[in-house]
């Protein structure tokens, strides 16, 4: 695993054209204004404390209102408790407030907020409002494209609420956390573009971490990913998440992501 990781990092740092359409984090850039994107993210995570896997499917709709503001709605469906049920949903907004662009490079800053609700049982220290906890998250993200290598980093505050009155947030856990991410991306193919029809292949490595503010419990994961862009309009992401370090209770930290994504440009003229 370490060798593969090192190789991926080396690949990313080589000179070439890069990508910032990351699998598990969002860059400071938004989807185009007046465009609609739909995607379904599927996760298959191995249970650590019991045998078996848990499966999540998250259909999402993303809308670009204008060049600086985008919205996203997500539904959370999972089989964590026996059969496949809808456990909750989420609203997300991102506002790009700074851009400094040059030929083939840019530096951008954006602020984002997410509100989620979920009715499943709370079973771990980790706060994850994408499919596990009710709560909110707010933060800022910076994305830099230098000499065609994309690097993106974010810091956010995440707060968990009761998962409805049936599943209150346990007093023994800390209910707010600081999240941090660092992502690298690179385009592997084509070396030279000839048309919009060419399939692009991107390789990414993302680091995702969290510290519970009250007790300092933390984790850090690495997520290597490969991405195919088809017809300059559709995306297929395949990623693997591996826990690097953790001092908190997590029931299923490791697993795979499979994301299918399609963009509709120019909704209305």
């Amino acid at each position, binding site marked *: 695993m370490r060798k593969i990781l090192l190789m991926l990092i080396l690949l990313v740092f080589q000179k070439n*054209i*890069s*990508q*910032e*359409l990351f699998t598990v984090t969002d860059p400071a*850039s*938004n*989807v*185009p*204004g*007046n*465009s609609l994107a739909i995607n379904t993210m599927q996760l298959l995570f191995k249970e650590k404390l019991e045998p078996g896997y848990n499966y999540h499917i998250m259909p999402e709709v993303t809308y*670009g209102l*204008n*060049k600086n503001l985008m919205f996203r709605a997500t539904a959370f469906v999972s089989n964590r408790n026996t059969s496949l049920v809808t456990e909750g949903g989420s609203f997300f907004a991102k506002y*790009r407030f700074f*851009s*400094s*662009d*040059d*030929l*083939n*490079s*840019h530096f951008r800053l954006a602020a984002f907020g997410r509100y989620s609700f979920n009715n499943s049982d709370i079973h771990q220290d980790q706060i994850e409002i994408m499919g596990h906890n009710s709560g909110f998250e707010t933060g800022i993200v910076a994305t830099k*494209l230098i000499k*065609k290598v994309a690097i993106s980093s974010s810091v956010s505050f995440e707060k968990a609420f009761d998962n409805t009155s049936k599943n209150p947030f346990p007093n023994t856990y800390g209910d707010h956390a600081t999240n941090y991410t660092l992502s690298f991306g690179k*385009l592997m193919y084509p070396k*030279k*573009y*000839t*048309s*919009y029809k*060419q399939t*692009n292949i991107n390789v990414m490595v993302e680091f995702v971490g969290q510290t519970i503010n009250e007790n300092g419990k933390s984790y850090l994961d690495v997520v290597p990913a490969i991405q195919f*862009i088809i017809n*300059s*309009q559709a*995306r297929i992401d395949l990623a693997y998440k591996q826990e690097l370090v953790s001092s908190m209770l997590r029931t299923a930290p490791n697993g795979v992501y499979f994301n299918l994504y399609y*963009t509709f*440009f*120019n909704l209305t*003229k």
Partner: protein
Amino acid sequence: MKKSYPYLTLLALVVFNFLNANAQISKAEIRATGLTCSMCSNAINKQLKALPEVANITTDLNTNTFTVTLNENTSITPKTFKQSVEKAGFFIGSLLLTSKTSSIKNEKYIVVDAKTMDSEEVTYQVLDKGYVTDKEYKKLSKSLKKMGTYLANNEDDFHIKILN
């Protein structure tokens, strides 16, 4: 099969005369900044394609240069190109336009290099803020500092450099 529309032709003539205050751009070469991916480039491509004035677009994905051929006698202004590129989430790095020489001889177009324009068609670069890279704009603000209209950043007049 071919029908004639005398009134339409007349109306068209009247409209064209009215539109003569516009630069009657026939071709635009837009270089976009801040992107390297084909999906990003496609976002700009789709925005430009949606413009009714646009007849055809060819793209060099390696330089993100869009060569746009326009329908005849449209009233499109440089501002439309800027809005389209920015709506897609990016910026214009350079904008080269081709127009009939007679059509840019009006107060909207301010020629900064006092070149004589004796050919029928003229190709020129728009130098205003938002039509060049930030670095170039800083340089131009210094070299054109005596030009009050340039520094005023009025969105509806365009400072141009003649290229042919």
